[in-house]
C-alpha cells in the first residue's frame, strides 16, 4: 500500500470530479455567503431595535422589517443554492466512479478475481463511493468554508485587540499537534474498519452462496458464530475510531472555550485599563461565539476527510492494478478462421503461486487441425481445465505460445479471440435473464432456428416446459434447475456461439446415461465441422473425439486414438479404464 499524504490522495479523485469542480467551488462561495449573512443578521436586528428606541415610527419599522426579511430569505436562498449547486454533481461523480470501477473490474483478468474476495470489491463499489460523494458535496464544501470563516474570525478577533487574538492563536497550538497525530493514527484505523466491513460482506456472500453446504451439515450456526466474531472485530474498530474522535473533540471543544474564558479575564482587565472599549469586548464575544460551530465541526470534517481518503485509496487500489491480460496495441485479425489451434511449449504457473513452486504446465505441445476434435485426458488436478482457460486468455501462458490459425492468441483482441473460441465450463454459470439470453450469450443476434438447434444438440428440451418457455428467467433464480439441466444449457450456449473452436470442459459429467448418449449423437454432427478441445473423464466422452491427448506431469505425453493408447500406454489405462475394466470383469 502506498502511503501518500491525505491531500495528494484526495486530489487523485479530481480527474473524476473535473466537471463538478466549478460547482463545488461555487458551493463553497454559497456556504461562505450563508455564514456571512448569518453573521450580519444579529447585528442588523440590534441596530433596528435601537433605531426603534429612538424613533418609534412606521418609517423606521417597515424598512427594517423588509431588510430582515430580505436577509433571512437571502440566507435560506444561499443554503438552497449551495445544495442545488453541489449535490447533483456529487451524484454524477459517484456514478462515474462506480462505472469506472465496474469497467475496470470487468477488464481485469480472472487471476485478479481469484485473489480478491468478492465482498471487498462489493464494499468498494457501495459504501466507499457514497462516502466519497458525501465528502465531496458536503464535507469538502463546509470544511473549506469553515476554515475560511475561522481565519477571517481570527483576523477580526485580532482587530479588537492583538492580545485577545494571540490568546486564541497560542491556545490553538495543541490542536495542531493533536490534529497531526490524529491524522496518522485515525487513518490506520479507518482503513482497518473499511477492510473489515469488506470482510464482513465477504462472509455474507459466502454464507449465501454456500447455503446448501451449510444446511447439509447443519453448520449455519457455526458459520454465524464466525460471522459474529468478524462483526465484533468491526465493532471494536469502530469503537476505537470513536475513542480517537472523542479525544480530538475534547481538544476542539475545550481549547476554544478555554480561550474564551481566558480572554474574558484579560478582556475585562483591558477594559478596566482603558485599552479596550466595552463595545469592543461585546463584539469580541459575539464573534467568538460565531466561531464555535466552525471550530467544533472541524473535528467531524477531519474524520470524514480521512474516511474519504481511505475510500479513495481503496478505489485506486483496484484502478491502479495493471491489467495483465490486455488487448495488444496493434491487434491482428483473422479473416477466415479455420480453427487450427496449436500449443507451442506452453508453460504455466498461477500468478500467485510461490516462487519455488514448479510450473503446473511444463511445455505443452499440441496441434489440433481445423475440424479435428481432441479429447484431453489426465488425472484430477493435472491442469486440464487450466490448459483450456489459456486458449481464450482467461489466463496467459507464462512461457510458450498458443496460436489460432497461425496467430498468437495474444495478438488478437480479447473480443475477437473469444468470438472464435467458445467454452462450456464444467460448473455452468447462468445469468439472471431469460433462457434465450443465456443460450445466445455468445451470439445475441442468432435466429430462433439457431437457438432451437443449439437446444436440440444439447438435448435441452426441458426449457420448453418451463413456465414461460424460452422467456423464463433463469440464472440466479434458476438454482432449482438440476446440475444436468444447467450443464446442458451451458453446452447449448457454447454450440450456439458457432465458434471455430469449441472448448468443452467435461461437458457431460452431470448427465444421466440416456441423455448423455443422445447429446453425444447430436454433438457429433457439430464436431464434424468444428475444431474442438474436450476435457474428458469418461471413455464415452473420449469417443466423441477424433484423437486423444494425454496430459501428464504438465506435458502432453501421448497423442493417438483411444484404442491405440489403451493398448500401448500404461498411464492412459490408469486414467481412463480401471473402474470400467473392473466393472466389465464383474
Amino acid at each position, binding site marked *: 500500500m502506498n502511503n501518500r499524504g491525505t491531500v495528494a490522495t484526495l486530489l487523485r479523485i479530481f480527474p473524476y470530479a473535473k466537471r463538478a469542480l466549478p460547482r463545488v467551488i461555487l458551493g463553497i462561495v454559497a456556504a461562505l455567503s450563508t455564514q456571512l449573512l448569518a453573521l450580519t443578521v444579529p447585528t442588523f436586528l440590534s441596530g433596528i*431595535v435601537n433605531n426603534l428606541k429612538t424613533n*418609534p415610527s412606521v418609517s423606521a419599522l417597515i424598512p427594517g422589517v423588509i431588510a430582515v426579511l430580505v436577509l433571512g430569505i437571502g440566507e435560506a436562498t444561499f443554503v438552497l443554492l449551495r445544495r442545488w449547486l453541489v449535490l447533483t454533481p456529487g451524484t454524477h461523480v459517484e456514478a462515474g466512479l462506480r462505472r469506472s470501477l465496474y469497467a475496470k473490474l470487468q477488464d481485469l483478468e480472472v487471476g485478479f478475481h481469484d485473489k480478491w474476495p468478492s465482498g471487498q470489491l462489493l464494499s468498494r463499489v457501495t*459504501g466507499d463511493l457514497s462516502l466519497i460523494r458525501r465528502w465531496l458535496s458536503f464535507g469538502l464544501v463546509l470544511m473549506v468554508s469553515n476554515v475560511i470563516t475561522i481565519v477571517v474570525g481570527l483576523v477580526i478577533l485580532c482587530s479588537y485587540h492583538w492580545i485577545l487574538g494571540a490568546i486564541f492563536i497560542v491556545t490553538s497550538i495543541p490542536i495542531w499537534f493533536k490534529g497531526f497525530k490524529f491524522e496518522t493514527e485515525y487513518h490506520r484505523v479507518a482503513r482497518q474498519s473499511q477492510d473489515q466491513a469488506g470482510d464482513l460482506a465477504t462472509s455474507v*456472500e459466502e454464507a449465501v452462496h454456500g447455503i446448501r453446504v451449510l444446511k447439509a451439515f447443519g453448520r449455519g450456526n457455526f458459520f454465524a458464530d464466525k460471522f459474529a466474531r468478524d462483526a465484533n472485530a468491526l465493532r471494536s474498530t469502530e469503537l476505537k475510531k470513536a475513542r480517537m474522535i472523542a479525544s480530538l473533540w475534547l481538544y476542539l471543544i475545550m481549547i476554544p472555550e478555554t480561550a474564551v474564558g481566558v480572554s474574558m479575564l484579560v478582556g*475585562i482587565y483591558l477594559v478596566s485599563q482603558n485599552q479596550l472599549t466595552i463595545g469592543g469586548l461585546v463584539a469580541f464575544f459575539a464573534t467568538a461565539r460565531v466561531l464555535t460551530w466552525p471550530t467544533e465541526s472541524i473535528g467531524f470534517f477531519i474524520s470524514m476527510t480521512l474516511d474519504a481518503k481511505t475510500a479513495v485509496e481503496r478505489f485506486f487500489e483496484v484502478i491502479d492494478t495493471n491489467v495483465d491480460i490486455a488487448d495488444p496495441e496493434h491487434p491482428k485479425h483473422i479473416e477466415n478462421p479455420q480453427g487450427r489451434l496449436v500449443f507451442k511449449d506452453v508453460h504455466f504457473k498461477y500468478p500467485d503461486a510461490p516462487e519455488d513452486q514448479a510450473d503446473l504446465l511444463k511445455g505443452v505441445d499440441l496441434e489440433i487441425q481445423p475440424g479435428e476434435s481432441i479429447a484431453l485426458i489426465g488425472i484430477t488436478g493435472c491442469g486440464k481445465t487450466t490448459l483450456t482457460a489459456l486458449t481464450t486468455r482467461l489466463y496467459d501462458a507464462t512461457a510458450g505460445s498458443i496460436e489460432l490459425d497461425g496467430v498468437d492468441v495474444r495478438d488478437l483482441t480479447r473480443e475477437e479471440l473469444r468470438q472464435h473460441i467458445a467454452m462450456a465450463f464444467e460448473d455452468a454459470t447462468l445469468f439472471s435473464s431469460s433462457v434465450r439470453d443465456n443460450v445466445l450469450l455468445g451470439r445475441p443476434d442468432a435466429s430462433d432456428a439457431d437457438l432451437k438447434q443449439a437446444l436440440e444438440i444439447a438435448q435441452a428440451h426441458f426449457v420448453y416446459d418451463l413456465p414461460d418457455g424460452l422467456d423464463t428467467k433463469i440464472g440466479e433464480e434458476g438454482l432449482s434447475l438440476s446440475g444436468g439441466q444447467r450443464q446442458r444449457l451451458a453446452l447449448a450456449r457454447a454450440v450456439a456461439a458457432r465458434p471455430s473452436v469449441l472448448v468443452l470442459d467435461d461437458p457431460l459429467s452431470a448427465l444421466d446415461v440416456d441423455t448423455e448418449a443422445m447429446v453425444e449423437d447430436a454433438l457429433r454432427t457439430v464436431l464434424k465441422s468444428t475444431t474442438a478441445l474436450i476435457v474428458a473423464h469418461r471413455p464415452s466422452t473420449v469417443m466423441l473425439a477424433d484423437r486423444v491427448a494425454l496430459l501428464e506431469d504438465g506435458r502432453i505425453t501421448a497423442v493417438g486414438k483411444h484404442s491405440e493408447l489403451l493398448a500401448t500406454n500404461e498411464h492412459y489405462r490408469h486414467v481412463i479404464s480401471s473402474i470400467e475394466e473392473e466393472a466389465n470383469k464383474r
Partner: protein
Amino acid sequence: MSMQGVNNEDNVDLNKQQSREVRRRSLRLLFSLIRGIRLRLVGSFFMVLVSQALRVVGPGLITFAIDRALPAAIKGDMKLAWLTAGAYLICAIGSAATTSFFLVYAQRTNQAVLFQLRDRLFRHTQMLSLEFHEKYTSGRVISRQTNDIDSIKELLDTGGNEMVAGIIYMIFTGIALASLDFQSFLILLFAFVPLAILTRWFQKQTKFWYRKSRVASAKLIVHFVETMTGIRAVKAFRKEKRNQDDYNVLVEDYRSINAKVIQIFGIYDPGLTMIGNITVAAVLLFGGMRAMHGDFSIGLLTGAILYTKRFFDPMENIAQFYNAYQSANSGLEKVSGVLEEDPTVPEPTHPDVLAEPKGALDFDNVEFHYSNGKTILPDFNLHIPAGQTIALVGTTGAGKSTLAKLVSRFYDPSAGTVALDGHDLRKIANDDLRRAIVMVTQEAYLFAGTISDNIALGKPDASSDEIMAAAKAVGVHEFIMSLPDGYQTDVNKRGGRVSAGQRQLISFARAFIADPAVLILDEATASLDIPSERLVQHGLQTLLKGRTAIIIAHRLSTVSIADRVLVMEHGRIIEDDAPAKLIAGTGKFAKMHKAWRDSLA
C-alpha cells in the same frame, strides 16, 4: 397485495394499509433492537441534558461578565472577573468532557444495536429454507445485509442525541418566549402551519423515493455480485459490453433517485430556515407595531426576537436526523421483511430425543409438489432399514434429487411423513438431524480459509489427525500434500487452485469426518476422474459400513457397492431389488446397465 415478509418488496407506492403494515413491522424491529439497551438510552438522555445545560450556561456567564464583572473591574475589583472566568473554564472543561465521553458512550450503544441487527439477520437468513433463497436470490440477501444495514448505521451515526438536545432546547426556548410575550408565541405557533405542511410533504416524498432508492441499490448489488461471481463466463462470452450497458443504466437509475432524495432534503432544509427567518421578521413587525403604540417595551421586543431566532437554531440538526431516519426506515422496512419470513422448514419446539441414530428411513404416503403446483412425488412409500446402501437410478426429473432433499430436510413433504428411526423429521431438532443425516451434492462449495478448515466443517472440533485420516480415506491426501502449504493451503490463494474433482473429494472428506448415520450422495462423484472415483469407491466401502446410504449416480459403477437398487420414474419406484438380480432381469435397469456397459467399450 400483501406486504407480508418479502412479498412485493420492490413495490414503492404503497397504499395506506400496506404502509401501516410495513411501518408496524419496522417499528417492531426497532423497538426489539432497543429493548436490550433501554438503560443505556436513559443514560444517554441524562448525559445530553447535562452537556446541554453546561453549554447553555456559557452565554449566560458572558452576559454576567459584561453586566456585573466588568463594572466591578472598572472600579478596580477583579475578584468577580476571576470568579466568572473560572466558572466559565469549569463549564468549558465540563461540557467538552461530557461531549467527548458521550461520543464514545453513544457509539457503544450504536454498535451494540448494529451488531445485534447484523447477527440476527445473518442467523435468520441461515435459518430460512432453500426455497426462500432460491426465490429471493443471493444478491438480494447480500444487499439486505450490507447496504440496508449501512443505511441504519448512518442514522445511528447522525446521532439521536443531537435531535433530543435540539428538541429539549426548542421546548425550553418556546416556554421562555411564551412567558415573556404570549403574542409573539402565538406568531411562533402560527409558523407551525407551514412547518407542518413542509414536513408532511418532505415525509411523503422521501418515503417514496427512499424506498425506490433501496430497490435501485439492491439491483445494483445483485448485478454486481452476479458479474463478479460469474466473471469467467462473462469474459468467455464477451458479455462485458452488454454488462456495462446494463450496469450503467442501473447506476444512472440509482443516481437519479439518489439525486432526487438529496434535492428533496435540499428544499426542506432551506425551507425550514426560510420559515424561521420569516417568523423572526413577523415577530419584529408585530412587536414593533405594538411598541409604536407604546404597549410593548423595546427590551421585551429584543427578548422576543432573540428567543424566536434561537427557537429555529436546532432545526437543521433535527431535519438532518429526520432525513437519516427516513433513509434508515426504508432499510428497516426491507430488513424487517426478511426477518418476518418464517422458515418453511421450521425447527420443532418440542423435539423428539434422538440419542443414537440408527439410520432407518421411512417414507409414508409422501407427496411433494413445487410451489408452482408441479407434482414430483405423487404418493411415495419406502422403507430403508438401518445400514442399507441404496442406489437410486432413473432419468432426470424422476424425483431422485427431490427424495434426497426430503431426507436431508431441505424441504418438507407436501403431505405424508419422512421419518428417521420412527421419528418424523419435522420432530427432530436441527442439530440432531444434521448430525444424523449428511448430504454431499455435486456442487462442492469451498469456503474461504484453509483446506483443513474446509474439511473440518463436517466436524468443527476435529483434530488434525482426524482431518488427515478423512482425507486419506477419500484419497485426497496426496493431492493436499502436494500443495505449497499442505493442509494449511488457503483454497483461494497462493496458486492452490483446486479443480472441480478435488473440490468434490474435499467435500467427501467433509462428509466422512461428520460421521453421520445416514449419508446421501447426490451426484457427488460426477466430476471425479476415474482414478479418483476408484479411490472413492474403495473409501466408500469402508465409509458406508454401518451406515444407511442413498447414492444417486448416473455412473452405474457405483451401483456395484449397493445392497439394493431403486429405479425411479415419474416419482414412482418401478424396480426395487438387489443389483445382481436386476441386471439379470429384463427390466429398465437391465437395459440401462447394458447401455452403460456399451458406453464403456
